[in-house]
């Protein structure tokens, strides 16, 4: 427990989280500063390449075992499943209508790559190890939640039958399965796997050496986004909705911990699977929702995911998830 507290404190005082706090603070004080969108998007691509490569290189060191395959499968199942639970809870405890509840649920079934990265750091600081295949799990968990949400939103009568004008066969599928983060994560994972440690040696200074620093810059921007979203959108959030943004990750975490326990995952891997399940999307899913459920309100699902759940996860959540992972391994 003491060790977990140490992790919690060193997480909170790490420059990455401090820059996030700086951004959030500046936005709440209504500073006009911003990171240009093109630059931030470039950094996001860098981060995903780096994560993918790292995972791929690590995976290239060990053969693909049945255990690994089961973890991948567990991730997919969790991503399909969590939105169901989230949807039911939202409908019972908040006043959100079917569409908004489904759209919000999709966010919680999908994942946040930055939360994943922050957890990777915390896991390392805790002296634990995690396998490269968790990056593959992350990529796999992005989309199933969207499918569940679309199913939930379309249930019941009165739904639009004819497609929206101009919509095209396959456009949603392309958006969902071939969005930047999946293409880059999976592609870089494969490249890391093929090229291996030796083949990627010459690009390590860029992708490994700079990773932490770039993350600081990116989190400054995320803090600005989250703070501004919160300042502008908090009126749309009732107490019940905010509550959901705080207890849902914990609930997801417990479910994921159960799965990790059943699969006998080592603590590092388990901590990352739990974090992925507990994290909520704020890039890929909002984009997909604009196409698939345009009548759902971004000011609800985005404010909640980026302004409430993300800050909660990277500060308080991750130490809890590591603790859970130790617990199921009898080391809590």
């Amino acid at each position, binding site marked *: 427990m003491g060790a977990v507290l140490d992790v919690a404190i060193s997480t909170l005082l790490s420059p990455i989280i401090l820059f996030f706090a700086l951004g959030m603070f500046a936005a709440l004080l209504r500073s006009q500063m911003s990171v240009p969108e093109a630059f931030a998007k470039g950094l996001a691509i860098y981060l995903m390449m780096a994560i993918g490569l790292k995972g791929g290189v690590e995976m290239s060191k060990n053969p693909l075992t049945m255990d690994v395959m089961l973890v991948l499968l567990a991730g997919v199942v969790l991503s399909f499943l969590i939105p169901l639970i989230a949807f039911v809870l939202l409908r019972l405890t908040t006043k959100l209508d079917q569409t908004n509840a489904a759209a919000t649920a999709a966010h919680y079934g999908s994942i946040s790559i930055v939360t994943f990265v922050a957890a990777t750091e915390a896991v390392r600081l805790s002296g634990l190890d995690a396998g490269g295949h968790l990056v593959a799990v992350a990529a796999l968990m992005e989309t199933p939640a969207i499918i569940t949400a679309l199913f939930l939103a379309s249930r019941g009568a009165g739904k639009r039958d004819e497609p929206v004008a*101009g919509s095209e066969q396959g456009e949603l599928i392309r958006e969902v399965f071939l969005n930047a983060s999946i293409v880059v994560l999976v592609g870089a994972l494969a490249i890391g796997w093929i090229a291996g440690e030796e083949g990627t040696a010459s690009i390590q200074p860029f992708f490994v050496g700079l990773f932490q620093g770039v993350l600081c810059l990116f989190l400054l921007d995320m803090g600005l986004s989250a703070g501004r979203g919160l300042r502008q959108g908090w009126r749309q959030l009732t107490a019940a909705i905010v509550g959901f943004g705080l207890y849902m990750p914990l609930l997801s975490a417990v479910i994921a911990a159960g799965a990790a326990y059943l699969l006998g995952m080592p603590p590092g891997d388990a901590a990352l699977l739990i974090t992925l399940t507990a994290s909520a999307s704020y890039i890929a899913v909002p984009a997909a929702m604009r*196409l698939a459920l345009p009548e759902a309100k971004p000011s609800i699902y985005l404010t909640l995911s980026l302004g409430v759940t993300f800050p909660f996860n990277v500060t308080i959540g991750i130490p809890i998830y590591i603790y859970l992972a130790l617990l199921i391994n009898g080391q809590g």
Partner: protein
Amino acid sequence: MTKYLRIELIIERMAHKRACRVLEAAGMTGYTVFPAMAGYGGSKRWSRDTDISASGDMVSIVSIGDEAKVRDTMDEIANLLGAHIGIVTLTEVEVMRPGRF
């Protein structure tokens, strides 16, 4: 004399390809898309540089064509805007080289 109209369609960036397909399908000879950087509507403000998800971003699609074709296009555009947020205006314009529209 043929009358020419300029369509200006302000629509979500995520949905703009749908609008483009509508314009193409209706036989408009061309269009040009401009990125917006900020906006306000429904008492909410958005700004490109401060929203990491880019889900609030809008674009403006400008397309010039003769009246008949533009009027035809409007029905499908209305169908599109039933689902998405956005606004459309039509302005009467004078064109050079009318032959190309």
